[in-house]
């Protein structure tokens, strides 16, 4: 066997150009499959990471209205049978083993058409207004990067202070000073005390347009005030929405569902219900789309591999014809049929496997360059490398079999006579 492999390499080396051209089909086939798979895997991984907020594992449990897809938020309606989330329910949610942190907040969406709700510099500002508790930033993985966080006195003394997010800061103040600036909300003056943004680890990676569409709209301008202050401009403190952070990504689903059940126990209305958002569904949908595309691309690449395999078969047949006297001699010297068969099969397998290895390397290189240029994520799954390796080997066996059988069947007398 070793001898066969040595001979195969010697044969490939002595016909360098021919061998390379023969391998080219396999190289291109494997390289394109490798490139496609790596980029698709990278995209899938980013999709999953971005949807999960790159590991912050937050699940929102929104209040939905029966028969409508919209979330029930503060201000729009105040259905009967809703109460602030009780301490008992909060305690139950804290005791869910999958839950790391939980926060309860109020949300009011200020649309472009709302007038005189939020004003700065005599302009109406569309944004989300939130009344938050002391766990909000911790739960969502945000950090205060300018100014200060809320202090217990802000809550207890119902202070008119605001923390704004990065988007709001840029919209309102651009590069100018933010801390100490004053924003008018329902006629009252609120002072900006801090700017928060998502901790680096949890920022989605945006590089393609679809990333932008998927994640940018999640990050609209947001203004936060202490929950106790929220009732002041709006006159209500209902309904409360909840967000929990799961301890691990794969526990998000169950953490959400359990929290949703706990919250539901506090609802005394037929018209509304709590629902945890379902990431797995949207991740799966997007990944399925990617998968469909990659399947098609892999099929196209397989055709390249097929053509490559036929090229290998062709050149092996030429090789058998060329080496007929050698085969005859070997048989005369006592080589059995299977020895000859194995020799030629080894040669074609070595040829295609070498092509496969070069193809894998080329694919990795190509995908890396492509990823670098277009700022895409790329992942080289070990299974793809192994599949590429064994697949190229299989191509050698399948397409090398016929020439090898032909070589083994040669009549030694005929073979020796030819020269």
């Amino acid at each position, binding site marked *: 066997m070793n*001898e066969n492999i040595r001979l195969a390499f*010697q044969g490939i080396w*002595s016909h360098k150009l021919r061998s390379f051209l023969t391998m080219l089909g396999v190289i291109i086939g494997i390289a394109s499959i490798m490139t496609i798979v790596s980029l698709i895997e990278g995209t899938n991984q980013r999709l999953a990471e971005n949807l999960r907020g790159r590991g912050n594992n937050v699940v929102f449990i929104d209040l939905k209205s029966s028969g409508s897809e919209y979330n029930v938020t503060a201000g729009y309606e105040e259905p009967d049978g809703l109460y602030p989330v009780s301490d008992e329910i909060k305690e139950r949610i804290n005791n869910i083993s999958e839950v790391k942190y939980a926060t309860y907040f109020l949300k009011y969406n200020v649309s472009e058409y709302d007038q005189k709700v939020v004003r700065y510099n005599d302009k109406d500002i569309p944004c989300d207004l939130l009344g938050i508790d002391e766990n909000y930033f911790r739960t969502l993985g945000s950090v205060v990067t300018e100014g200060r966080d809320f202090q217990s006195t802000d809550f207890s003394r119902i202070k008119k202070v605001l923390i704004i997010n990065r988007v709001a800061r840029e919209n309102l103040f651009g590069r100018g000073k933010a801390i100490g600036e004053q924003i008018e909300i329902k006629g009252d003056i609120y002072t900006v005390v801090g700017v928060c943004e998502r901790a680096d680890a949890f920022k989605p990676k945006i590089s393609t347009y679809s990333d932008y569409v998927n994640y940018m709209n999640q990050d609209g301008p947001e203004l936060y005030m202490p929950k106790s202050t929220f009732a002041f401009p709006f006159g209500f403190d209902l309904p409360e929405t909840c967000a929990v952070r799961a301890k691990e990504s794969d526990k998000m689903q169950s953490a959400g569902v359990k929290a949703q059940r706990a919250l539901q126990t506090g609802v005394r209305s037929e018209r509304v219900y709590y629902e945890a958002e379902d990431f797995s569904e949207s991740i799966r949908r997007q990944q399925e789309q990617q998968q469909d595309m990659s399947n098609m691309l892999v099929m196209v690449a397989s055709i390249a591999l097929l053509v490559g395999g036929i090229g290998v078969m062709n050149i092996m047949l030429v090789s058998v014809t060329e080496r007929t*006297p*050698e085969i005859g*001699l*070997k*048989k*005369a*010297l*006592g*080589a*059995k*049929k299977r*020895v000859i068969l194995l020799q030629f099969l080894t040669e074609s397998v070595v040829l295609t496997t070498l092509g496969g290895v070069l193809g894998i390397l080329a694919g990795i290189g190509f995908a890396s360059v492509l990823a670098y240029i277009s700022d895409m994520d790329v992942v080289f799954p070990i299974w793809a490398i192994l599949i590429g390796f064994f697949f190229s080997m299989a191509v050698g066996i399948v397409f090398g079999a016929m020439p090898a059988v032909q070589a083994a069947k040669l009549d*030694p*007398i005929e073979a*020796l006579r030819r*020269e």
Partner: protein
Amino acid sequence: MIIDCRNICRSFPIGDSFVEIVKNVNFQMEEGEYVAIMGPSGSGKSTLMNMLGCLDTPTSGELFLDGVDVGKCTDDELSDLRLYKLGFVFQNYQLLARQTALQNVELPLTYAKVPKDERRERAYEALKKVGLEDRVNHEPSQLSGGQKQRVAIARAIVNRPKLILADEPTGALDSTSGRQVMELFHSLNEEGMSILMITHDIDIAAHAARIAVIRDGVLNLNAEMDPMIIARRKERENGVKQV
């Protein structure tokens, strides 16, 4: 008895009919004998040689090689006969290009699954025996015709066969190299190796202890009476250039 042919025939289909190339050959050869078979081209000597070399099987008759009934052997058993009992020497050497002399000689040993170290050693010994120990790492293209044929002989004897089958071993050699090859055969024969040689050269055939002549597929064991031998003898006496 190393070779025992009993009424062997070999016919080939040509068109609708069969043409008999080898006819009813009866031929015995004892171990340690040195026999030459002469015959003009088309006489059937190559066909006979192929059958004796287990590359071809008789259409009828029985052939025993060292007691083994060749007609009853499978493909693999024929391969083993060639591997362990026979050594081939061809007119055109049949060495593998781009392989060194040593690798060429090792070839039959790899088929016999001899371990690598022993293979090296035995191949080297065989090359030493033919006087080429200083050429082990040369490739055929770097060797003269006589040296190539000696590498081929080393390859033929490396697996310690019972019988060497030589098909025109000096056909492509000049007279000096031819003589060296004949000397080599002599010393091998003296060590007890059986040698069967095909040639059309009477001088070469004369090295053998026994000469048989094949003509139109019929083997004449009593070669001294063969018209070809007599004619050749006459040519030599008259100083006519040999063909």
